[in-house]
């Protein structure tokens, strides 16, 4: 059986960061991804990132993706695409399939960077064509250059809802409203400012209650909600639209971590159940590390650095780094992560992360 020092599952920012760091230290690294191209969500991100220079501030997401791919290649990482990892077994072997074959790989260390899936809402009519997640709309517009519709209603004012709204406006669609169930906006002010300046109304304490249409979406019914997020009778309004985007949070994709025996813990601020891990990104299973949205929903830049931490840790445990070099490298990456977890939003995530480390 083919043996690798490190097998990384998921080629988004976290998986790429992990593979690059382990590869640079001389580990034999395999990077697996179910998609036909690597980069995860990075290639959908047409906006410029902010933060500091070391976090690629001012660079657009897809350009960061291209740079990481080049770094992975230079680090000698073997990348197998279009392979869905369907199992992890007690002997540490990993099985992945495409449409024509299923292959078993063996690795000394496994780094799970499986990311997250988008949350859904269920309401009458939610399966009508035209109702989709914000990520799906972003794939339509930014990857395939197809507008999902002309008249759009967005549910959710987190960063995903705000950024996708702005990108749909840029692509020529009309976003008729952003609905937010909470009594205040949940995303960054810089993103909120952009959509507000563009004139998109943000309806706080509102949610969608029904999607209507004959064969495809023609209108949505919305309503005001009370403090328990229950719709208030009598407050319903109907908004004609052909597309409804749901941007209502992300859930860590824990399936592989769970079947491989990693303990899971709950963290509301980090998106739900996630594999318990320490600050070295080690899970409760000794040879399995985790990184990125799987280890708590944050951002592409934090995912990348968590991946780098995991990859460096795996290289250290393989004996490819002495303890001094490892500690230095770890402190450098951790310092960057700490700076990313500052401010009112970052602080909440930092505290949640520390709770996970203590769990």
């Amino acid at each position, binding site marked *: *059986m083919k043996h690798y020092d490190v097998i990384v599952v998921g080629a988004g920012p976290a998986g790429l960061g992990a593979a690059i760091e382990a590869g640079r230290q001389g580990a034999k690294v395999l990077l697996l991804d179910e998609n036909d191209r690597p980069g995860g969500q990075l290639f959908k991100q047409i906006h410029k990132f902010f933060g500091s220079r070391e976090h690629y501030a001012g660079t657009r997401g897809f350009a960061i993706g291209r740079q990481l791919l080049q770094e992975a290649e230079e680090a000698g990482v073997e990348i197998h695409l279009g392979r869905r990892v369907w199992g992890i077994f007690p002997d540490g072997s990993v099985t992945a*399939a495409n449409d024509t*074959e299923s*292959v078993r790989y063996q690795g000394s260390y496994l780094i799970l960077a499986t990311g997250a899936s988008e949350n859904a809402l269920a309401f*009458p009519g939610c399966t009508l064509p035209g109702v989709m997640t914000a990520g799906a709309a972003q794939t339509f517009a930014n990857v395939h250059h197809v507008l999902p519709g002309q008249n759009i209603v967005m549910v959710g004012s987190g960063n995903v809802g705000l950024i996708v709204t702005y990108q749909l406006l840029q692509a020529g669609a009309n976003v008729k409203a952003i609905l937010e169930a909470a009594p205040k906006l949940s995303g960054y002010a810089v993103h909120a400012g952009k959509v507000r300046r563009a004139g998109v109304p943000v309806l706080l304490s509102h949610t969608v209650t029904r999607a209507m249409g004959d064969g495809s979406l023609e209108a949505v019914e919305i309503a005001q909600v009370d403090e328990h997020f229950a719709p208030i009778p009598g407050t319903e309004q109907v908004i004609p639209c052909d597309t409804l985007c749901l941007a209502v949070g992300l859930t860590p994709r824990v399936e592989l971590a*769970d079947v491989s025996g990693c303990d899971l813990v709950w963290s509301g601020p980090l998106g739900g159940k996630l594999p318990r891990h320490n600050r070295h990104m080690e899970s409760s299973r000794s040879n399995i590390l985790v990184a990125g949205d799987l280890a708590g929903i944050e951002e592409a830049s934090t995912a990348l650095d968590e991946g780098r931490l995991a990859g460096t840790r795996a290289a250290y445990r393989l004996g490819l780094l002495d303890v001094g070099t490892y500690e230095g490298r770890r402190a450098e990456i951790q310092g960057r992560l700490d700076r990313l977890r500052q401010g009112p939003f970052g602080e909440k995530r930092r505290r949640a992360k520390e709770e996970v480390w203590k769990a």
Partner: protein
Amino acid sequence: MKQERDIVCRCEEVTREEIMEAIRLGDDSLDAIKKRTRAGMGFCQGRTCKRLIAQILSAYYHLPVDQFLPGSIRLPIMPIRLSLLAETVDGAVESEEGGEVHAPDSH
């Protein structure tokens, strides 16, 4: 415009009313509801509906939602053809160009 159904598990087309009926019959976990209604047994393996059903259970039993998640997860974690599952091969894979790049190690 016709009245649309309130579907919670779209892969298996299980409605909110069917989930509520299962709960009224005593189902108190994702697994119990899955066994009765097939919710979560479809192509996406509950990735879309599990959290929604957990929220319904949480509201009904007045318990935190995390008590119901993630439910039992088993291999294979995503749909795979049985013929491929049965013939899983060791480590030799084709490169993107289609050529053989890795001979399997002897074992």
